[in-house]
């Protein structure tokens, strides 16, 4: 597995990319790579620091949950979010200056979405926080594209046979986030209360 596949500077903070290895060995390798990248002019140290700072300062699934709660309570925002995710989350102060594109995919009764990065572990870090170790596991990455219904069932999410599943494999510069369905019986809840109901798994698509 190449560390190049992410091509991003987030290794430093979240060094476990895939497979089994100790953090110390990876950290040494990352430091060496970083030095080489800077020496060869592939990536500037300033650019790297900027990305790492942005990741450190506010990467959390609470951000994604806030975006979802806004979409559940504001139809116009939801339309903008589905049409241009990057621009819509910037309205809420997320992903400012990011070079990545955000695409939000909506779950409905007919379609359930789930995200993966089969090449490594790409993921909208600022909105979802550090990715869980299973997201980076070879088991999840190889199986969810092949048998998503079975994988989701192992997460406790059993979908009706009639619900179609779409798996989004983030193989380039777009990062995906799932807009889960608003739970029934939540009509009386305010936006902040709704955000508390949104789990990280729901934002990945491995939860309801």
């Amino acid at each position, binding site marked *: 597995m*190449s560390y*190049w*596949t992410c*091509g991003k500077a987030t290794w430093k903070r979240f060094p476990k990319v895939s497979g089994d290895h100790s953090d110390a060995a990876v950290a040494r390798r990352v430091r060496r790579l970083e030095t080489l990248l800077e020496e*060869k002019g*592939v990536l500037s140290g300033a650019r790297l620091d900027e990305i790492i700072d942005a990741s450190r300062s506010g990467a959390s699934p609470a951000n994604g949950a806030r975006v979802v709660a806004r979409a559940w309570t504001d139809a116009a925002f939801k339309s903008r979010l589905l049409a241009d995710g990057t621009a819509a989350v910037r309205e809420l102060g997320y992903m400012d200056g990011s070079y990545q*594109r955000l*695409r939000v995919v909506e779950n409905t009764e007919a379609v359930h979405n789930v995200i993966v990065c*089969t*090449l490594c572990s790409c993921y909208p870090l600022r909105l979802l926080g550090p990715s869980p170790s299973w997201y980076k596991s070879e088991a999840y990455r190889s199986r969810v*594209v*092949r*048998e*998503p*219904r079975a994988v989701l069932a192992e997460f406790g999410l059993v979908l009706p046979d009639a619900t*179609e*599943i*779409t*798996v*989004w*494999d*983030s*193989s*380039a*510069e*777009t990062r995906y986030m799932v807009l889960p369905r608003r739970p029934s019986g939540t009509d009386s809840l305010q936006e902040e209360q709704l955000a508390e109901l949104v789990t990280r798994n729901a934002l990945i698509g491995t939860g309801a």
Partner: protein
Amino acid sequence: MTDTDRLAPGTPVRTFHHDPPHHTRLPRYARGKRGVVIEPEGRAELADDSARGLGNARVEQVYAVRFAARDLWGEGDHHVVLDLWESYLEEVPEGER
């Protein structure tokens, strides 16, 4: 810069089957497979070039392309969407659709 943006949404495409001796972002499971373009995602440096540290990496349109599980694995009722650079794709000729 290549002549890019040539694939409209709905275009049937086939991914290339090559196994390059360098980094690529066309996952092995999706090589030589048929799919349909959903949408362009914007242009980006071709990872195959930039990962090799080539100066003047090609800049191409990246497309979201939807594949039926049956076409990838021979079974399954789901779909998989991949983000693929234009040079990974060729349009399926009219006669083969």
